[in-house]
């Protein structure tokens, strides 16, 4: 018998063909902004080390309208990334207590609690 299996190619726009893939690609895209913000903070630290004038310049750039818009954009994407990631944590880190699985919402809740605690510490240290 002559077999002639047909292979269908994956199209370049595969991620547009189902809402779950679109949601996934958005989650992946948001990590770019989280990374960009981390890079900018690192640059800020370098400018701080370089002296007063360098730091002032960095703060001025961050406070400009473009800087503020960029930070808002980063905040929105970081929140989206965190919320979708927290929702997945029960899969990656399931807990068993006395042979029974801990409910997923407890694991997700613990992450929000930790987020709130870390944010509170940062705000206190920053003197807000």
């Amino acid at each position, binding site marked *: 018998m002559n077999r002639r299996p*047909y292979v*269908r190619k*994956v199209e370049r726009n595969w*991620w547009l063909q189902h809402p*779950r*893939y679109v949601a996934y690609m958005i989650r992946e895209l948001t990590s770019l902004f989280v990374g960009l913000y981390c890079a900018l903070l690192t640059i800020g630290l370098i400018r701080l080390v370089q002296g007063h004038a360098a730091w002032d310049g960095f703060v001025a750039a961050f406070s400009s309208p473009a800087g503020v818009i960029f930070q808002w954009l980063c905040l929105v994407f970081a929140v989206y990334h965190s919320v979708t990631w927290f929702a997945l944590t029960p*899969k*990656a880190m399931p807990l*068993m207590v006395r*042979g029974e699985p801990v409910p997923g919402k407890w694991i997700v809740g613990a992450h929000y609690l930790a987020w709130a605690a870390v944010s509170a510490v940062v705000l206190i240290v920053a003197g807000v």
Partner: protein
Amino acid sequence: MSETVTLEVLRYLPETDSEPHFQRYTVPFRDDWVVLDALNHVKDNLDATLSYRWSCHMAVCGSCGMMINNEPKLSCHTFLRDYRGGVVRIEPLDHFPIERDLVIVMDSFMDKLSGVKPWLIPKQEKPLSEGEYLQSPAELNVFHQYTQCINCVLCYAACPQVGLNADFVGPAALALAHRYNLDSRDGGKDARAETVASNEGIWECTFVGACSQVCPKNVDPAAAIQQTKISASVDWLKDLLTPGAHR
């Protein structure tokens, strides 16, 4: 006139076709029919040349997986009534070569499955005279959900990484590896790591999560893979700090 449903089925006859094409069939609507019943009606009454796999008709054998309106589903587990008023588009599972009509070539999956050594590899073989390898219900509970896999490969059809890299070991095989790694009677984790922790193994997964969403048995392969990533990372770190000591 009684109600009917239109099926749009992807056909591919390797003897005559250079590429697949859609063919429409009109079948009677029955409230208690699943998509597989409609296909059986086509085969028995309209077109005996239509090919597809099925066996148990009760979501146990895992052989009747198809793309139904772009979603990987068991056709025996998918009611026609949920598609009332529209056309039901039926295609072979994505990411597999098409052998004929709705029949896919599964050889690559079978190779990947055997590659993760999905069987018990005892820590220490003992003679029959010493009896069974015992296990408590709590120890069974740790991995029980991963034993429910029926190898229907819906997860492979849902996973974009499988589509983009045909060598990716994939969700079901990695979930089954995790099932044996978690088994208290097993000592084969290192033997499986060669495949599981390779570039084509867990690290090819980007946690899309589609595999778990389409799984008809709630196996949750995405969870298994993320847990394996953590465990493989911990093993790597241990090996780095104390070479050879933890094995």
